[in-house]
C-alpha cells in the first residue's frame, strides 16, 4: 500500500473510532463540532465543483435554503419522510439550477455578473422564505416537528449524536469521492478549457452550455442534500442560516481559505473556520456580544490578504519548494 493510502486509512480508522473514545463530558460537544465540520465541508466541496472552474457562485445559500426548507416543510405539513423529502429537495434545487443556468450560460453571463446574479438568487430565496411567513415561519425559522421518539429512522431524527456523526462522515467521504471522480474525468479538462477561454473551447467542439449546466446541477443537488442533512441534525431551519448572502459568503470563505483547487481544501478551510468561530465563541461567550464575529471578520480579511492561495495551497507550495532536488535548476 502506498504511503498516502496508508495515512488515509489510519486517519479513517481514527475517525471511525472517535465516538467511542472516552472523553468525559466533552463527547457531545466534540461530536457536535465534528458533525458541523463534516456537513459544511461536504457543502463546501459541492460549491468548489463550480468554483474551481471559474463559476464563482455567491448564492449557494439559495440551493441550501431550497433543499432544507423543501424537506422540512414536506415533513411538517404532510409527514412525508425526509428520505423522500430529500429526493424532492434535490429535485427542487436542480430545477432552480437549470432555470438559472440555461439563460446564464446561453447568454454568457460570467465573472462579476455571474457572481452578482447568483447573489440575487440567494437573496430572492431568503426574502421569499421571510415573505411567506405564514407557512415558512419567516425570520423566526421553523422547527421540525418531533417524531415522538429518540430513534426514528422514518423521520431521520435521532437523539444519539453518533448516528449523525457517522452519517455526516459518510456524506463527507462520498463528497470526496465525487470530487475525485470529477477531477479525473474528461469533464474536468473541458471545464478548465471553458474557464480559460469559452470561445476557444466552443470552437474546438466543446458543448459549453451543457458542461457548465452539468456541473452547476451537480453542485446544486449536492448542496441541497447537505442542507437537508443539516436541517435534520439541528431540527430547525432559519432563512438567515440556510439562505442569503451571509451563509453563501461563509461557504466561499471556507473553501477559498482552505484551497479551492485541492481535494482536502474545503475540509481544511471548514475545519479552520469552524474551530475559529467556536474558539472565539468560547472565549467571549455572551459577554461581549459581537466581538467574536468581529475578530472572525478581521482574521478572514488578514488571511485573504496574506495567504492568497489558501492555507492548504500555501503549505503545499512551501513543502513542494523544499522537496525540489537542488541539483536540478528550477
Amino acid at each position, binding site marked *: 500500500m502506498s504511503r498516502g493510502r496508508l495515512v488515509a486509512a489510519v486517519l479513517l480508522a481514527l475517525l471511525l473510532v472517535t465516538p467511542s473514545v472516552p472523553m468525559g463530558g466533552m463527547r457531545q460537544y466534540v461530536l457536535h463540532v465534528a458533525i458541523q465540520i463534516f456537513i459544511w465541508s461536504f457543502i463546501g466541496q459541492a460549491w468548489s465543483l463550480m468554483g474551481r472552474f471559474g463559476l464563482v457562485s*455567491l448564492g449557494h445559500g439559495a440551493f441550501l435554503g431550497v433543499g432544507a426548507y423543501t424537506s422540512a416543510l414536506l415533513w411538517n405539513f404532510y409527514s412525508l419522510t425526509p428520505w423522500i423529502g430529500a429526493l424532492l429537495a434535490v429535485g427542487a434545487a436542480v430545477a432552480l439550477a437549470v432555470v438559472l443556468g440555461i439563460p446564464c450560460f446561453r447568454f454568457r453571463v460570467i465573472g*462579476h455578473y455571474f457572481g452578482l446574479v447568483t447573489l440575487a438568487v440567494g437573496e430572492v430565496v431568503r426574502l421569499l422564505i421571510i415573505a411567506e411567513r405564514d407557512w415558512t415561519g419567516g425570520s423566526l425559522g421553523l422547527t421540525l416537528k418531533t417524531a415522538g421518539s429518540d430513534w426514528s429512522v422514518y423521520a431521520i431524527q435521532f437523539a444519539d449524536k453518533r448516528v449523525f456523526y457517522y452519517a455526516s462522515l459518510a456524506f463527507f467521504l462520498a463528497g470526496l469521492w465525487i470530487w475525485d471522480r470529477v477531477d479525473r474525468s474528461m469533464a474536468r479538462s473541458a471545464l478548465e478549457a471553458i474557464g480559460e477561454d469559452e470561445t476557444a473551447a466552443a470552437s474546438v467542439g466543446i458543448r459549453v452550455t451543457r458542461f457548465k449546466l452539468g456541473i452547476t446541477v451537480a453542485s446544486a443537488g449536492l448542496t441541497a442534500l447537505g442542507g437537508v442533512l443539516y436541517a435534520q441534525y439541528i431540527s430547525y431551519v432559519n432563512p438567515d442560516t440556510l439562505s442569503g448572502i451571509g451563509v453563501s459568503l461563509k461557504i*466561499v470563505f471556507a473553501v477559498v481559505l482552505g484551497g479551492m483547487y485541492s481535494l482536502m481544501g474545503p475540509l481544511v478551510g471548514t475545519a479552520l473556520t469552524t474551530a475559529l468561530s467556536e474558539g472565539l465563541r468560547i472565549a467571549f461567550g455572551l459577554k461581549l*456580544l*459581537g466581538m467574536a*464575529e468581529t475578530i472572525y*471578520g478581521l482574521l*478572514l*480579511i488578514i488571511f485573504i490578504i496574506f495567504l*492568497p492561495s489558501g492555507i492548504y495551497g500555501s503549505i503545499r507550495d512551501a513543502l513542494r519548494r523544499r522537496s525540489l532536488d537542488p541539483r536540478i535548476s528550477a
Partner: protein
Amino acid sequence: MDPIFLAEAAINGILLGGVLALLALGLNLIFGVLDIVWIAYVDLVMLCMYAVYFLSVVYGWPIWAAGLVSLAAGALLGVAVHLLIISPILTSAPINQLLATGGLLFFLQSAATFLWTTDHRSVRLSLPSFEIAGIFLPATRIIPFVISIVAVIALYVFLTRTYIGTAIRAVSQDREAMSLMGASPQRIYIVTSAVGGLMAGLAAALLVFQYSVHPFFGGQFGPLTFMICVLGGLGNMVGAFIASFIMSEVIAIGGVVISTEMGYVIAFVIFIVMMFVRPGGILAKRE
C-alpha cells in the same frame, strides 16, 4: 386599488430612487476605476448613519452639521478601506478581492453590533408634509431627493469638467493606458475612493431621514445596490442612474400592491430576468 395609492407609491418610488442613485453611482465609480466590487460599500453607509445619529441625537448637533460630518467621515472611510484593504490585493485573483471586501462586511456588521448593539435607532425629525391633489408628500422624502439630484449633477460636473474627474473617467476606460500617459494611479485610486466614500456619507445623511439605524442596514440595501449597478451595466454611470429609478419604482409599487418583501422579491426577479435579456446591462450595446 385606489389610484391615489398607486400614484403616491409611484412618486415615493421616484423620491427613493434619488437616494439609491447616490449609492449606485458611488459604487459604480469605484468599480469603474478599480475593477473591484466593494461588497461592504453599504456598510460604510451604515457607519456614517451611526455618526449622524450620535452627533444629532446624543450630542445635539444640528442635522446639517451632522450631515457634513457624515460626508467627511464617508470620504475618510473610503480612503481608509482603499489603503488598508484594497491596495494590498489589487493584483490578487478576483475571487480573493470579493472575499476581502466580504470579510470587511462581516467585520463592520459585527463591530457595529458589538459597539452599539442591534437596537434600531432613529433620528426623529419632525418635518411638514405637503399635500398635492390628495397625495401626501412628506418633506422627509422630498428634501433627500432634491439634495441627491443636486449631488448627482455635482458629480457629473466633477467628472466632466475637472482635471482629476477627467482622469478618473480615463482610467475607467483603460487602466493600463493611464500609466503610459504619465498619470499616477495611486492618486487616482485614492481620489476615487474618497469620492465614492463621500457619496456613501451623503447617502447616509439622507437615508437617516427615513430609515432606522442598525448594524444590518448593509444587508437591507447592499444586495439592492449591487443589483442596480449590474442592471445599469457595471461601471456605466448613466445606466446606474436609470436603473436606480426602475428598481425603486418596482419596489415602491410592488410594496403597495402586494407587500414590502414581495416588492423586493419582484425587483430582484426582474433583475435576474434582465440579466438574461441584456447581460451587459440595460444600456449595453448589442453584441
